[in-house]
Structure formats: C-alpha cells, structure tokens
C-alpha cells in the first residue's frame, strides 16, 4: 500500500505544480482568455458545458466502440488467416506495416469524400487506427506460441481448425487484450479526428466550433473530456480482462 501511494505521489505533485504555475501566470500577466485560459476557468466551463459535452461524448463514444468492435473482429479474422496460410501472411504483413505510416489526418478527409458526412467515415477512422496494434499483437502471439501445444492436441485427435479453437486462439488472447488496451486509448482520438473533418455532432465537431469562436476555456474543457474518456476506454478493457481472464491476474 505504501509503495502504491508513493507511485502516485510524484506525478500528482508534478501536475499540481504545473497547474499552480499556470494559474498564477495567467492571473499575474492578465493573459486574455483567447490566448490561454486559467485552469480555474477551464474547470468552471467544464462544469457549465458538461451537459452539452456529455451529449457530444455519447456520439463519439458510440463511434469509438463501433470502430473498436469492427477492428477487433477484422484483426482476429485476418490474424487467423495469416497464421493458417503463411503465403498470405508474407504478402499482407509488410503492406500492413507500411500503411501505418500514412497520417490519419490525411486519410480522414479522403474517407469523407468516399463515404459522406455520416457516421461511417468516423467509424472507419477508428478502425484504421485501432486495427493495427490488435492485429499485430494477436498474429505475433500465434506465430510465437510453443508448437508443442499444437502437437499435443493434434495427437489427441484434434483437427487443424479445432487446434485453433483449443490452443492457438486462447494462447494469443492475452496479447490480443494488450493490443486492445493500446487501441482503446487511441479510439476516442480516432473518432474525434473523423468528426473534426466534417460532422454535425460529437466531441470533434464541438471542438472545432468552440475553437473557431476563440473560446479556449471550452476547448480545454473538451480536451479534458477526451483525455478522461480515453482513460475510461482503457479501463473498460482492463475490467473485461479481469472478469474474463482471471488466470492472467495470478501470474503477475
């Protein structure tokens, strides 16, 4: 318990120090709101704007969850196909890595041209951001697993696909969950980028609107909301892991 406290103490003190200096600087030099809002101003607009923020957050979270779900499904499907057919893997895997270097901010407007201003391009942005870490960690884990496990179930009479269900997929699930934790943290940002380019609702849309009105306190409040939601998504995966994979707990 003492160790846990100390782990939290240092970053908390650092953050408090920065916030205090920030607040003091804004007050002493009388920096105007449209240049830099004081933390207190950000907090108070977070309070007043909360109902609006929550409404937009609902849209963003829905897009993020849909995108994550789709990314998970595609990653598992492609992972199994790549593992079962090494030829497919050597064809697809390098291409997959290269596509990751294309900046999302370039892709998002193109997606809107193809898919319109609805929810689809936002979900696709999330998929594109979340797919990679999940697919890579899942595929690598299956590739690196001890093949003796497969020999064992095969010698017990399991077929090729049964071996996937019995050992290959379960053995790769911990890595899959690690990939999901990374993706979950990205997912909200992914949806926000999609909304930023063109939308009628969502945190990205809200962010663009208040930025154009120079309401920087609201911009910062929205950023806080995005940070909080990203952490919540990460926490959600952790909760699912604790509930569904109890054996992972005892190991560490």
């Amino acid at each position, binding site marked *: 318990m003492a160790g846990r406290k100390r782990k939290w103490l240092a970053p908390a003190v650092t953050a408090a120090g920065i916030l205090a200096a920030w607040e003091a600087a804004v007050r002493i030099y009388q920096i105007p709101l449209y240049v830099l809002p004081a933390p207190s101003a950000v907090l108070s607009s977070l309070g007043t704007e909360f109902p609006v923020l929550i409404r937009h957050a609902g849209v963003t979270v829905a897009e993020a969850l849909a995108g994550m779900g789709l990314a998970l499904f595609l990653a598992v499907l492609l992972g199994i196909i790549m593992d079962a057919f090494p030829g497919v893997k050597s064809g697809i895997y390098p291409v997959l890595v290269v596509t990751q270097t294309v900046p999302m901010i370039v892709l998002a407007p193109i997606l809107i041209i193809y898919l319109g201003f609805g929810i689809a391009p936002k979900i696709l942005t999330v998929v594109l951001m979340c797919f990679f870490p999940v697919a890579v960690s899942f595929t690598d884990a299956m590739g690196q697993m001890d093949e003796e496990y497969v020999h064992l179930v095969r*010698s017990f009479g399991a077929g090729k696909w049964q071996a996937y269900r019995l050992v290959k997929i*379960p053995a790769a699930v911990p890595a899959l969950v690690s990939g999901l934790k990374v993706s979950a943290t990205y997912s909200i940002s992914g949806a926000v980028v999609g909304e930023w380019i063109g939308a009628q609702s969502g945190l990205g849309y809200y962010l663009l609107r208040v930025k154009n009105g120079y309401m920087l306190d609201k911009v910062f409040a929205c950023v806080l909301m995005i940070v909080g939601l990203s952490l919540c998504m990460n926490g959600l995966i952790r909760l699912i892991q604790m509930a569904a994979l109890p054996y992972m707990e005892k190991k560490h």
Partner: protein
Amino acid sequence: MKLEVSGLSFSYSDREVIKDLNFQIKEGEFVSILGASGCGKSTILKLLTGVRKPSSGKILVDGEEIKGMTGHFAYMPQNDLLFPWKNILDNVCLYGRIHGGLDQAREEAMKNMEAFGLGGYEKSYPSSLSGGMRQRAAFLRTALCQSDILLLDEPFGALDVITRGEMQDWLLSMRETMNRTVLLVTHDMDEAIYLSDRILILSGCSGITCELSPENPEGGRSREWLYSQGKLRQRIHREIMGRRLDENHL
C-alpha cells in the same frame, strides 16, 4: 503384438536422427526406452503419434499398419503443457472435449482426482499448483484418453529429485490398477529399472542395442529392491558408456 515398429527412420532437414529402428511391445506391457539426452527419444514418440512423418519404415498397432494421426496413442509431452487459461478439471478433460464426450469425461475425471493427488484442486489454475501436481494433472489428462497405448516422454524429468522419487513411487502403484500398455522414454536409469517390465537401450543412430528385463521380486518392487540392482545398473552403464567410447574412437 500390441505395437510393432520396423525399419523406422527419420531426419530433421538432412540430419538423420533415427535410423532403422525396430522394437515390439506386448499388450499390457510397460516398456522403457532409455537413452542419453538428444539421442532421439522424443522424436520416436512424435513419429508414433503422427506429429512427424518417418522417411521410411512401418508402425503397426494390433498387427495393422497405421499412418499419420490415428488416435491410437495417448501422449504425455516432456513439459506438462497444461493450458494456463483452463482450470485443472477442464485441462484433464481435453480428450473428452475434442471427441464430444465432455460430461462423461468430467465424471470420469472427478472419480480419479483423489487417486491422482488432485482432490480439491479441480477449479484451480495450473499456475497455482506445484510441479509434481502439474505433472500428475498432465498424466491424468493422458490417462483419460480412450487410446490403447500411453506414451510418456520423460514425465518427471523437470522435477526435483525428491518429488521425482515420489512420483515414481506413485506411478508404480498406479501401474497395477491401470493395466494399460505403456511406452516410457527416459534418460534416468533408475526410473527405467524401477518401473518397467522391459528396458530398451537406445544409442542414437545405432538403434536399440540392448534389451533387459528387470526381475519382479516376491512382494513387488520397492526402493530397497531398486538399490540392490547394482549388477543391472552396471550392465546398462557399460552398454551406454561403452557405445559412447566406441563412437568417440571412430
């Protein structure tokens, strides 16, 4: 003959590991293959289960030639290979799960838990068990296979000396009640003497160079009996070391 192996050969890429291997096992017999590490013991078991394909030779079960994975063998690998994501009960019921008899397998497993020293640990995960218990669980998983022949690959090789001794005592006591055909491979001479009806000494590519049958003393085998087997031990030692010396002089 329950199991016959004739002229079996196998190479990893271009290195020949097994060459012209021949042996036979009778129904209900407990046979050990004894050999140094790296001489190809695990490979033989992989050829029998069909995980690897021999480059030549035949494997016959009950007089009929078999090829590939036939399910005639219940294999216990060198490492326990219990699934960390399943509890002990589900781990030992693997055969039932694969062949669609899970409920029956559970029932059968619960009857055996106590005898295998696993009573009360049905719902535990493998990571919370001791090495000896994990090995017993792996053995129970193999024993619950409805296959005719058990193949055990150095089942106690990874355990400390004391636990290994306990496990050997335990396996000896199980032998009588189990009454199944067993092929055990090991590098441990005492283990082979203590447990087997017949010992086959494997010397790499020279195949099986010697066959020995330890006696069955009045009142059954015991550690005391094992310690008095100096002559047998000496012969085995000469056989293995002699070959090694010959090979080194070539």
